[in-house]
């Protein structure tokens, strides 16, 4: 059986992020001969590369505008696998639309690899990358000190960066950061151990990715089951079947559980968990199932099932941090839609409560507006109640979207305070 890890990479401009991603794909044999040929051709056309070696960064080249301008516009998803684990990598560009893209990548990631150029050390931008990972509560953060070949694989250089990064991480509430000295260009300590860093006895970057625990945080949290839709076949075979279809957002759902549906408040007992392969006794976070209840509750789409002793908060006023993703700034009084779980409600942003300082993750003074790539606290008044958790306690039920009611654009990523 293979497990699955979703990760994201963050790095400043020119710290070799594309090369590292290319290296991971290459060294896990995820790049096939025809793709390698194409990149080798492109390397020669552009006069780059080392000798005859293809420029690994070109593997992750995307759209035409990006190639023409030599930039990356958007998050790209890459796939590679080892015999024990499949990886989904959200490859986020370092410069354009920086916060928008890294927040997107970090929202689904269980691990973030932050890259630092060994020659430059921890920069202002590095702290921002780290802060975004901390803010989005990515469970694992890894430091890759890249371009070690350009500092002669010097241990002291590595140790100094490692220490500075760890200090910054601790101050942001991120603990247990793993650090690896690498050369993405030459492959040192990426997939294979380098002979040029005899002083480094830790795992390679890929070994870390293969062994970091996954999926544990969600099953330790209180159970949440947002109802997506009601399944009522009304066929001769299943005339009275009524199942609540959904995906367990966090925790574990078991047959026999007493549950409450919120915001409506109806209570019942789980009499069955259905799958097309037959009934099961338990469903864990991440699993899509159909739930059968003892009572016919009025619990359709938008309701959240939980245990009565660990319910989410039902609110009509919401305090949250908003990461603003739109070119049009937010001003108080804005009428928007809030999409949380399987429910979308109308809302008014009544107040901006303070800009988030990414260096310290503390709130500063209340701003007049919130602009693209800025993060700030806000208070929203909701037209209908939502059943929410604080993002700090549950990543899977504490996030929401702010949507433009007119053109439907996604305006912000919201994190429940």
């Amino acid at each position, binding site marked *: 059986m*293979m*497990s*699955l890890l979703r990760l994201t990479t963050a790095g400043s401009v020119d710290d070799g992020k594309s090369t590292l991603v290319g290296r991971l794909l290459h060294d896990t044999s995820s790049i*096939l*001969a*025809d*793709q390698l040929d*194409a990149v080798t051709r492109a390397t020669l056309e552009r006069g780059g590369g080392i000798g005859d070696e293809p420029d690994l960064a070109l593997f992750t080249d*995307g*759209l*035409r*505008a990006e190639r023409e301008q030599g930039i990356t*516009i*958007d*998050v790209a*998803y*890459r*796939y590679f*696998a080892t015999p024990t*684990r*499949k990886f*989904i990598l959200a490859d986020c560009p370092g410069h354009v639309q920086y916060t928008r*893209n890294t927040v*997107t990548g970090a*929202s*689904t990631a269980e691990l973030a690899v932050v890259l630092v150029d060994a020659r430059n050390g921890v920069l202002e931008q590095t702290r921002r990358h780290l802060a975004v990972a901390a803010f989005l509560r990515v469970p694992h953060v890894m430091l890759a000190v890249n371009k070690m070949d350009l500092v002669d694989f010097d241990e002291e250089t590595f140790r100094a960066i490692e220490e500075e990064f760890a200090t910054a991480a601790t101050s942001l509430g991120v603990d247990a950061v793993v650090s690896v000295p690498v050369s993405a260009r030459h492959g040192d300590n990426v997939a294979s151990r380098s002979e040029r860093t005899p002083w480094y006895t830790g795992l390679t970057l890929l070994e870390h990715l293969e062994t970091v625990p*996954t*999926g544990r945080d969600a*099953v330790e949290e209180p159970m949440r089951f947002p109802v*997506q*839709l009601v*399944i009522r*076949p*009304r*066929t001769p*075979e*299943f005339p009275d*079947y009524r199942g609540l*279809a*959904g*995906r367990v957002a966090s925790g*574990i759902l*078991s047959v026999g559980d007493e549950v409450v549906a919120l915001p409506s408040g109806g209570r019942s007992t789980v009499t069955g968990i259905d799958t*097309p392969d037959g009934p099961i006794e*338990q469903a864990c976070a991440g*699993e*899509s199932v*159909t739930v059968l209840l003892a009572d016919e509750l009025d619990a359709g789409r938008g309701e959240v099932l939980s*245990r009565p*002793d660990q319910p989410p908060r039902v609110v009509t006023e919401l305090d949250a941090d908003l990461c603003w*993703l739109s070119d049009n700034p937010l001003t108080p009084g804005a009428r928007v839609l809030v*999409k949380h*779980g*399987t429910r979308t409600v109308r809302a008014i942003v009544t107040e901006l409560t303070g800009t988030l300082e990414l260096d310290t993750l503390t709130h500063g003074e209340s701003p007049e507006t919130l602009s693209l790539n800025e993060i700030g606290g806000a208070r929203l008044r909701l037209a209908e109640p939502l059943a929410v958790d604080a993002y700090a306690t549950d990543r*899977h039920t504490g*996030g929401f*979207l702010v*949507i433009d009611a007119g053109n*439907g654009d*996604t305006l912000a990523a919201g994190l429940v305070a």
Partner: protein
Amino acid sequence: MTPVAPAIVDTDHLAALESEAVHVIREVVAEFDRPVLLFSGGKDSAVMLHLALRAFYPAPLPFGLLHVDTGHNFGEVIAYRDQLVADLGLRLEVAQVQHWIDDGRLHERPDGTRNPLQTVPLLDTIERHKFDAVFGGARRDEDRARAKERIVSLRDAFGGWDPRRQRPELWSLYNGRHTAGEHVRVFPLSNWTELDVWHYIARRGVPIPDIYYAHEREVFLRDGMWLTAGEWGGPRRGEEIVPRMVRFRTVGDASCTGAVESTATTLEEVVAEVTASNITERGATRADDRLSEAAMEDRKREGYF
């Protein structure tokens, strides 16, 4: 009250991909009025259909299938499609590219391939039926432009994809809001690789057309690909028809979908062959994607799937 945590908390990757796809399909059915599933009869659409049936079990599939038929089909694929539709009692709409050529709305290309011609019939059919969500089996690992595609992807009134207008996709919240005339394309298999698809077919016993297994076929060699002889253009002078043991890695327009030489006659052998292959499925078998570095990107911008 507190449940005992199961011994294994590491998620099995296929189970995780399956649950994600089912979640996406249910979200879209809950939020859209007129979804439809693009169904070519290829392995990816077979997996899509299988997942959609699972998503609503034991209820019947709450939407129909749409096949944009180039007229250049492998007979086995059409037979498979029709059998499946009959067995499961599904609704199938077929948009015949030939009809668009006959009444002058489309013109045959000089190279005879009809894959790019599917876009107009697709958009016309979406508009005629007012479909607002169109499920497809495209995967991000197929192509560099698809690597940047969203799971729920907005299309303008002309069906076009504007990479700069893409909405950020956060957590597992999909924003499918659209204005009149716009629609979304939905790709629940976004995070699957070719190998994931094969492993899934093996695990769940998903039925697929016979041409995915090695069989003897009359073929001719063009641009390093084994193409099937037929009225759709080939062989040309100098191209010799020979019998070969081949199988297909993708199913598309027969004029430009190549076969690979293979002895894999069982699912296990096919999985082993795909695992060992060192060429991507599109590189090996799709002449239309070899046209330029940005062939897929250009087609997507025009409304291709």
